């Protein structure tokens, strides 16, 4: 960790120089189509026997220029793009972007919409952690986990479909509130899922917690110190597993999080097992938040009172001229946002998700920068794998829980 060479500087050197003239190392190419990378990530590892002497992550295979695209869309049209950044945490991305633009607009969002946002982002967190758990365990060899996790995830996707009409690319949060009023019977559907969910968590833990193979593959693996993690820009469950109780939901509460009661789970071991435990605890905390939201959901509007920004109701458009004009203006031209810039960070399932939005007063953003957690966490991949066994690299990769679309944008 002390050496100051950059991530893939060494990979470019010929073999003899990499091994300092003594032992020959073998360069192994993992990816970009390796099953354990869950996307297109290339890792170039230099092996001395079974020990990784140097690992370099090569990203960019999924770069789609979303930030450039944002500059030619109207403010509201950017929302569906943010879904596609991280397909497992689409609502967290919607939320961060909407909060940033609402900050620039100086908008007040009704309490009901805020609570809905909290509830749905927590369901997103559960969804994302379930996919992580299933695939992480699958990589390590526990295949059953995958089926169990995807069974519950399917229920969450059905809830998303019920709310927004889409299973994954929901675009349910809009600038000014929500896209639609919650569907009839949502309390029953969410309640049915969330009250049964603690039993499912228990089921997962029964399979894994004291499982000797699981312990062997995860305990003490891919350790990294807290200082290194901070320096390398790691955020989220990984840093909480290193002992730092830092959660943006608590430290810089956004939306309605200050009204909810939840804990920030931490561990100190900073290994793959600790990261697993932190995420399992987070499933429980998220469940708590969803139940609180379900029981205390305030009545009121789901959108802010902001003509010219929020689309008018259909009925109003048929009877009121202003409503029709606003509708036409919003759809054809969009709305203007006062010049300025805002950075808003939210706690996505993977860590700090920040949107830095710059406006020059036009109907489209001047610049949207997405500070994505997967990008920040992957910086630490090389240093984390150094001097570890090649067989452990799969567990280490899984414990980082990255989404390559989130990394490359």
């Amino acid at each position, binding site marked *: 960790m002390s050496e*100051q*060479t*950059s*991530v*893939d*500087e060494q990979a470019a050197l010929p073999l003899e120089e990499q091994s300092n003239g003594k032992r020959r190392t073998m360069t192994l190419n993992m990816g970009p189509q390796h099953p354990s990378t869950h996307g297109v990530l290339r890792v170039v590892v230099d092996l001395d026997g079974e020990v990784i002497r140097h690992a370099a992550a090569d*990203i*960019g295979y999924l*770069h789609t*220029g979303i*930030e*450039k*695209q944002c*500059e*030619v869309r109207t403010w509201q049209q950017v929302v569906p793009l943010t879904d596609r950044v991280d397909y497992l945490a689409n609502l967290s991305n919607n939320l961060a972007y909407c909060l940033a633009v609402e*900050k*620039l607009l100086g908008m007040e969002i009704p309490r009901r919409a805020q609570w809905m946002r909290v509830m749905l982002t927590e369901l997103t967190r559960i969804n994302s952690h379930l996919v992580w758990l299933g695939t992480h365990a699958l990589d390590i060899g526990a295949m059953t986990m995958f089926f169990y996790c995807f069974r519950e995830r399917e229920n969450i996707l059905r809830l998303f479909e019920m709310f927004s009409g889409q299973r994954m690319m929901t675009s349910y949060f809009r600038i000014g509130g929500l896209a639609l009023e919650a569907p009839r019977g949502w309390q029953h559907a969410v309640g049915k899922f969330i009250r049964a969910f603690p039993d499912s968590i228990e089921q997962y833990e029964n399979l894994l917690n004291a499982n000797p193979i699981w312990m062997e593959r995860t305990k003490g693996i891919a350790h990294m110190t807290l200082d290194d993690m*901070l*320096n*390398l*820009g790691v955020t989220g469950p990984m840093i909480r597993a290193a002992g*730092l109780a*830092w959660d943006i939901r608590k*430290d810089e509460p956004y939306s309605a999080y200050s009204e909810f009661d939840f804990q920030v789970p931490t561990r100190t071991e900073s290994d793959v097992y600790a990261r697993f435990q932190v995420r399992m605890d987070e499933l429980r905390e998220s469940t708590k938040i969803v139940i609180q939201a379900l029981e205390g959901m305030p009545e009121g509007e789901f959108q802010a009172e902001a003509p010219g920004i929020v689309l008018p109701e259909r009925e109003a458009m048929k009877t009121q001229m202003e409503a029709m004009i606003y509708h036409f203006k919003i759809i054809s031209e969009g709305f203007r946002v006062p010049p*300025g*810039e*805002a*950075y808003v*960070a939210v706690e996505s399932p993977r860590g*700090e998700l*920040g949107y*830095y939005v*710059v406006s020059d007063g036009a109907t489209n953003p*001047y*610049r949207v*920068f997405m*500070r994505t957690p997967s*990008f*920040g966490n*992957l*910086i630490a991949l090389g*240093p984390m794998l150094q001097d570890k066994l090649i067989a452990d690299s799969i567990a280490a990769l899984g414990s980082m829980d990255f989404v390559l679309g989130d990394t*490359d*944008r």
Partner: protein
Amino acid sequence: MLTEELQRIPHVQALSAMPGAVQEATVHLGEVTLMIDPEQITAVCRKLRDEFAAERLSGITGLDWYPMEPRFEVVYLIHSIRNRYRLKLKCRLPGESPEIESIYEVWRAADWYEREVFDLFGVTFRNHPNLKRILMPEDWQGHPLRKDFPVHGHKYSYRAE
């Protein structure tokens, strides 16, 4: 030159005591932005990390104000967990030869973020250990997030050709 609100913030006060370091200081929507002399960016970052508990670099990005001059801005998003503040540092760079010192030795997270700004904006970071493209293919021509780079209709680049 500092407003009263800014004077109450210890790290802003300390930085503006450094000769010529802070060119402009603003608070907008509760976010503090300091315009920093590009020559002193490493010193400023080191001071923030060592004396004001700025443990982490949230990110680095760029802004292109084409056709205005100075054309580029490099934006550093800095965060202190212990002292609970976020801070934006900005450096203005000319369009002709945008070049600035790397802050890799202060926060190693800068490694990838600086490569990204280099890749997408064409800003060169002096003393960066491995400054090459990170998101675009290695043989890509141009810098996509510059405002004079077209959104549509750019010809594809093929590695093998």
